[in-house]
């Protein structure tokens, strides 16, 4: 083996090693941003299936639920058409371990482009901003909902 060949192999090997690292970062990048939108195929299939009778402007609709306070702070959940349950039960969408929360504490569900919060008969109550939620109430963007020690917010 000539010196030159070995030098070229060495450089090529290092380049390939870094290519692997960059490719890995690429997978993460698409992974991070891809989690918000579904894989292209599923999304295209979903679009036409939706009822056309939804003239609501998409602008004001929240797209994410963010935990802004409590032990789970920083967790985000992408809002879809499915309702979100909050509580200590293992099958809740957001599982809180908090002595002040009930197993099935509160529920958030979309209706006519708005998200509604409903207390599910919890012991310590659910609070929208400062007021206790006694019946299903629409949730504006950025207004804190308190469940025990956990605070969540809807964001765009």
């Amino acid at each position, binding site marked *: *083996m000539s010196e030159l*060949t*070995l*030098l070229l*192999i*060495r*450089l090529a*090997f*290092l380049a*390939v*090693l*870094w290519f*692997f*690292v960059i*490719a*890995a*970062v690429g*997978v*993460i990048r*698409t*992974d991070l941003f*891809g*989690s*918000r*939108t*579904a*894989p292209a195929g*599923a*999304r295209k*299939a*979903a679009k036409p*299936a*939706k*009822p056309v009778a939804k003239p609501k402007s998409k602008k004001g609709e929240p797209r994410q639920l963010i935990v802004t306070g409590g*032990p*789970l702070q*920083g*967790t985000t*959940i*992408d809002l*879809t*058409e*499915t*309702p*979100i*349950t909050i509580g200590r039960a*293992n*099958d*809740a*969408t*957001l*599982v809180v*371990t908090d*002595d002040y929360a009930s197993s099935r504490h509160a*529920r958030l569900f*979309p*209706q006519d482009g708005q998200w509604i919060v409903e207390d599910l008969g919890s012991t310590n109550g659910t609070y929208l901003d400062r007021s206790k939620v006694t019946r299903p109430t629409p949730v504006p963007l950025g207004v804190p909902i308190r469940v025990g020690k956990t605070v969540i917010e809807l964001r765009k």
Partner: protein
Amino acid sequence: MSEVAVSPVPMPAKRRGAQLIMLALAVLIVMGAYANVGLAMDGQVPAGMLTYGLSLGGLMLAAYLVLAKFAPWADPLILPLVTLVNGLGLVMIYRLEQSDLVGMAGASATSQIIMTGIGVVLFAVTLLVLRDHRTLQRLTYTAGLVGVVLLVSPLVPGLGKEINGARIWIGFGSATIQPAEFAKIALVIFFAGYLVAKRDVLALAGRRLLFIDLPRARDLGPVLITWAVAIGVLVLQKDLGSSLLLFGGFVVMLYVATQRTSWVLIGILLFVGGAFLAGQLFSHVGDRFDVWLNPTSNEYYERQYGGSYQIMQGLFGLGAGGILGTGLGQGHPDLIPLAYSDFIFNATGEELGLTGLMAILMIYALIVERGLRTSLAARDPYSKLLAGGLSFILAWQVFIIVGGVTNLIPLTGLVTPFMSQGGSALLANWILIALLVRTSDAARRPPPQAIQNEGLTQVFQR
């Protein structure tokens, strides 16, 4: 409302394809490295390349299939990244095995690939048996007991063995294992379960002094116990690495659970104080510090046992490698004592240079990042702590050993995860990766759909 239930839920992509491509790329890179070693040393592609490459590829394909079947939502990057570091370790061991020097007689790529095979089997078994990592929460105290028993087992007369000055081995006949490697996983499981139960009292009680919140004296109990165990390991087993690994892991998990800086400060002060005292009282600990501070001194360099010869050879190796390295098979990493186990990082550094080392550190960083990401995405506190603890332990271990062999911190007897030759560490780390994969599968799985209370039929879908 009926159309609401029907509409499909946007999900995070599984990205199986990306995983398979990255896995194939990792195996190809490893095979390329084999070919490179052979070309440089003998002028021809080594005969074993296909065997090694195919066995590694076959093993990883098996691991991939198990993962795709039993943890379909798991992170796509963890397995390929681990494959690459494991494979590069195999290549380095193979390369050192070619050396004629007496010191390299212990290097055996064949035994390492067999261990990799067993590691993959354990990975698969863990994924198969453990369908929901939260069942581990029930085993909190069992795991704690197992961890402590494993940790002290080398001290049992007759069972424990002292090799190279550290009493961290237990032996059955000629086979030896290093129980501390398995103990670290058991202890992370214990810490996660314990801290989930006790976090509120640890986080809330206490009073504020100056700018930090001091915990109550009685809540210091667990910290003091862990500290005592860690210092005990340091003094009785002469194992600074495991001691630092265990205590660091606990303090960080405590911080993650309580978000109180005071715990970290208390932990650092306790450990530095304890290690300093141990350094004053016990010569084997003190030696490590002396060597760390003056590695170039002639007295330490020429000392027969516990001197700085090894670390200086390692540093010379890194220096010889420079930015681009000498090329695989073209340096002299076999001059470093134990280049195939503790000092594999320097051996790799000599042949791949700073550029290659940075790539390898990036790969470790990415594995850890995926673990921490899993921790962020997890929806319950136990999974968060478990994933955070496991990935931190991995990162911390890389830091301790890489810091040690580059003389940033005192040298400890830890292995470089997945690269160093050594069965126990490899098996334990494959189990650790399986636990991370299991947790990330649960974290990335789309959230369970809540019970719809419209209509008579309730559809419950997970």
